[in-house]
């Protein structure tokens, strides 16, 4: 960190984790706060990352990048927003298994079925494309995808904790959301030299099914040179989220 000598608003950490992403991001938080850094990244496929040619199955590979020609900023884009004000308080969670047992004191599986109308386990797993769960952190929403059903509870793609306040999300028009992201970035930057982004695989599947993938990529490309990956879990500053797009923009 000292070698890179980060200044305010010009340095980002780009990372890949093999797993336990939330814990990694929490650990990074101390550095982020001290040096005013921003973080964006993803979970690696098959639980592997590589650094300098070596493959690791139990680690995090990261790069600290300082922009010598201007500012750097990370963004997060959600195409899912809260459906209503109803708060679902999580309990009977197991963070190691990413397990969610109860919502508002009732079995999570049943509550989710009642809220979405899904009737079978298969329906529930597919329903995450339309109605994922979201954790409220102030006014921000951290999307939590549903992976599987386990007994009367749900397995997520991200840990849930007792007393987390969750809410049911619904999809907005992805093209509208993309347009507002693009205009947000445009208003923050006069000149953009490059964008690196990670899109969750679930987003990729939804856009492809709607035939909007190329349109979406085109919108991002309108900002400048861009490249990106499909990811299995996204990092945005100290949040580990699902079904999200996270990107870093270089001036």
């Amino acid at each position, binding site marked *: 960190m000292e070698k890179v000598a980060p200044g305010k608003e010009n340095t980002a950490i780009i990372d890949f984790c093999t797993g336990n992403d939330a814990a990694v991001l929490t650990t990074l938080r101390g550095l982020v706060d001290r040096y005013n850094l921003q973080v964006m990244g993803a979970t690696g496929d098959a639980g592997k990352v590589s650094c300098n040619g070596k493959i690791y199955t139990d680690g995090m590979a990261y790069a600290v990048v300082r922009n010598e020609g201007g500012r750097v900023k990370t963004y997060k884009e959600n195409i899912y927003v809260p459906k209503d004000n109803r708060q679902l308080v999580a309990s009977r969670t197991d963070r190691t298994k990413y397990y969610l047992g109860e919502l508002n*004191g009732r079995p999570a599986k049943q509550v989710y079925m009642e809220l979405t109308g899904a009737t079978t386990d298969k329906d529930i797993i597919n329903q995450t494309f339309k109605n994922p769960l979201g954790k409220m952190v102030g006014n921000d929403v951290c999307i939590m995808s549903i992976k599987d059903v386990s007994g009367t509870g749900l397995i997520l793609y991200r840990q849930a904790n007792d007393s987390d306040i969750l809410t049911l999300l619904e999809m907005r028009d992805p093209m509208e959301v993309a347009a507002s992201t693009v205009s947000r970035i445009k208003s923050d930057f006069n000149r953009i030299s490059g964008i690196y982004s990670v899109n969750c695989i679930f987003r990729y599947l939804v856009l492809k099914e709607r035939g909007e993938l190329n349109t979406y990529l085109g919108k991002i490309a309108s900002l400048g040179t861009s490249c990106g990956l499909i990811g299995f879990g996204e990092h945005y500053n100290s949040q580990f989220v699902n079904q999200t797009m996270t990107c870093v923009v270089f001036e």
Partner: protein
Amino acid sequence: MITDLFKKKDVVEVQKVQVVSAPDDGERLESLVYIADSIEKFQKDLVQNELNSLMEIHDMGEAINSVMESNARLREQMDAFNEMFEAVNTSASKFEDVKVNIIKSVDNAQNKVEELKTSSNEVRASFDEMTQGFENFKSAVDQISDYMKQIIGIATQTNLLALNASIEAARAGAAGKGFAVVATEVRELADEIKVLISQVNASIEAAGQESEKLSSSMENSIAAMDRSLREVDETKDTFKEIIESANGANAVQQEINDTADAASDELSSIGNSFADINNKYDALTDQLARVNALGTTKSSVFEHIDNLVSQIPPIVKDRK
């Protein structure tokens, strides 16, 4: 030497430190694990506490919603009640129509009664004329009686004279026979006159009796007429009373209006109190929402604590 004493101590101390250092490191690591476990327990307590608070807040929110629903229902009932007052006012206003109809009917009746009185007075006047007529009639009858008497007197005298003439005629002998015949005729005429006059007298007598009867009938009718006229006056008083009562209904209707309006105003002010209460509950709901928003940031911090503390035991294990 004094310095030798110090030297020895140093050596001993250094040796002591060296002897202790190896087990110290392990104990330190165990202490770290112990601390990590304790923090984890406390963090779990905090989380449970937070969970309980959130449940309480959730219940509070439900309670508030239920109260507001009750309020809304009560408000509806009050509005329905208010409508009833309007209905009362509408009914009371019909009093006016009834009163107007009563007064109209009474007016008509009064006019008829006045007409009756006028006709009655005309009849009475006619009766008075008739009475006067009968008086005149009676005087005329009496007058005729007198004249009859005079005629009878004259007839009687005529009879006497005729008798005298007969006597004188008899004295005259044959020269007086013609005269004696005339005198006899005159005596027969005088007798006929007396008979006719007594017949006339009988008729006049009968007429007089009939007129007495008629006169007494008329007196009865006049008395009856006078009684009727008195009753008409009493009827006028009754009509006045009816009109006063009908007008009195106005005051009652006004009272009903005033009472209904007052009750309606009371309901309005109660309604305002309810609106007030609802506003306060809305404010309370907003506050709960803010409390909830604070809660969301707390759970994020709990996760960070959990993520860090849970890494200590594995790190310690690696080191051992």
